[in-house]
């Protein structure tokens, strides 16, 4: 296991190929759950958690079940079902083990099933032919990147809430312009050579 490669994957997933700002994945929560910092943190943590577990589970399924049986074209169906049931399972476990954590994350978990970032990371891990460790690291780092921009976005939106603006610019349009500026800022990272 090469630590350099892992570091490279981590930096690339958080900054250079940031899930939201350069790959355009997970935009719905990025705009939907970024009105308050607290909910942004909750959503971000749940995404990191589910993403890592999803990658841990789907990688062996693809390489030990789908590939040997020659049914890898079923990848999409199998992955989305695995993710959907996983989310349900995680929800039940958290509810049982830590009711306080469930209080804070609970409402975000059902939303995560249709978050394209989760399915996206599992599909990317396969198409980039990462090995098991690389897949898990990539999933975790992508989640961290997602959380980072989500929290930044919510901070900015809270500040902008009271700005005097024409009615039709409030809400989504403004959020998109903030997103554009953030994407511009993150483009700076694409110059990184590692």
């Amino acid at each position, binding site marked *: 296991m090469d630590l350099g490669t892992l570091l490279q994957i981590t930096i690339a997933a958080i900054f250079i190929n940031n899930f939201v*700002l*350069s*790959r*355009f*994945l*997970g*935009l*719905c929560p990025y*705009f939907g759950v970024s009105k308050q910092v607290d909910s942004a943190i909750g959503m971000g943590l749940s995404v990191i958690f589910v993403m890592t577990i999803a990658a841990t589970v789907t990688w062996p399924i693809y390489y030990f079940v789908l590939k040997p049986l020659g049914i890898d*074209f*079923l*990848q*999409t*169906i199998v*992955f*989305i*079902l695995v993710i*959907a*049931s996983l989310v349900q399972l995680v929800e039940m476990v958290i509810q049982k083990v830590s009711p306080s954590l469930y209080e804070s994350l609970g409402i975000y978990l059902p939303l995560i*099933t*249709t*978050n*394209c970032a*989760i*399915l*996206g990371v599992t*599909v*990317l891990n396969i*198409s980039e032919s990462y090995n098991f460790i690389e897949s898990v690291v990539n999933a975790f780092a992508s989640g961290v990147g997602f959380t980072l921009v989500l929290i930044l976005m919510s901070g900015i939106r809270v500040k902008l809430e009271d700005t005097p603006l024409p*009615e*039709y*610019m409030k809400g*989504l*349009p*403004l*959020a*998109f*312009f903030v*997103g*554009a500026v953030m*994407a*511009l800022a993150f*483009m700076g990272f694409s110059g990184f050579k590692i």
Partner: protein
Amino acid sequence: MAKIKELIKDGIWNKNPVLVQAIGLCPTLAVTTSLKNGFYMGVASTFVLVGSNVIISIIKSFIPAKVRIPVYITVIASFVTLVQLFVSAYLPELNKTLGIFIPLIVVNCIILGRAEAFASKNGVFDSLIDGVSMGIGFTLALMIMAGIREFLGANKLFDLLVIPGFEPAAAMILPVGGFLTMGVLIAIMNYINMKKR
């Protein structure tokens, strides 16, 4: 007949999935770097949407309410797999440019949203019309986005040069341009709808 007209109007304008409801944003921003990509993505999503709407409205009475979401997802995923196999067999180049956004049609909220909000409550024919009109609304939104971005960012439409000598702003093709165009479009849509009231 009146209902059909209503459904079509809803899909394309009143409840346009992208511009009014702001769902299905990921593919809208990601694949609209050229009109061709936007068009194909719209057609692929429309096919999945129509197929899943029809199937779900047929089988809706057999599905226990508790497991309906997984069932819907399975139906949608089957159609997406069909599209995936078709595209990789006949349009390999498109497969490369759209990349992971073809399998990601599964989690396009528009499709699951219509299954839950419309197909599970209405008949086969209405669901078919709803699927077609929502699909057209989605495709139109994609093409407007893609047209603006391809023209400003590459001075091209459908890969053809538009104005010789016009210096395109390459940023419009990059993610920045996507966010900016979308923001402007939603603001215009809001403005028109507020004026009406």
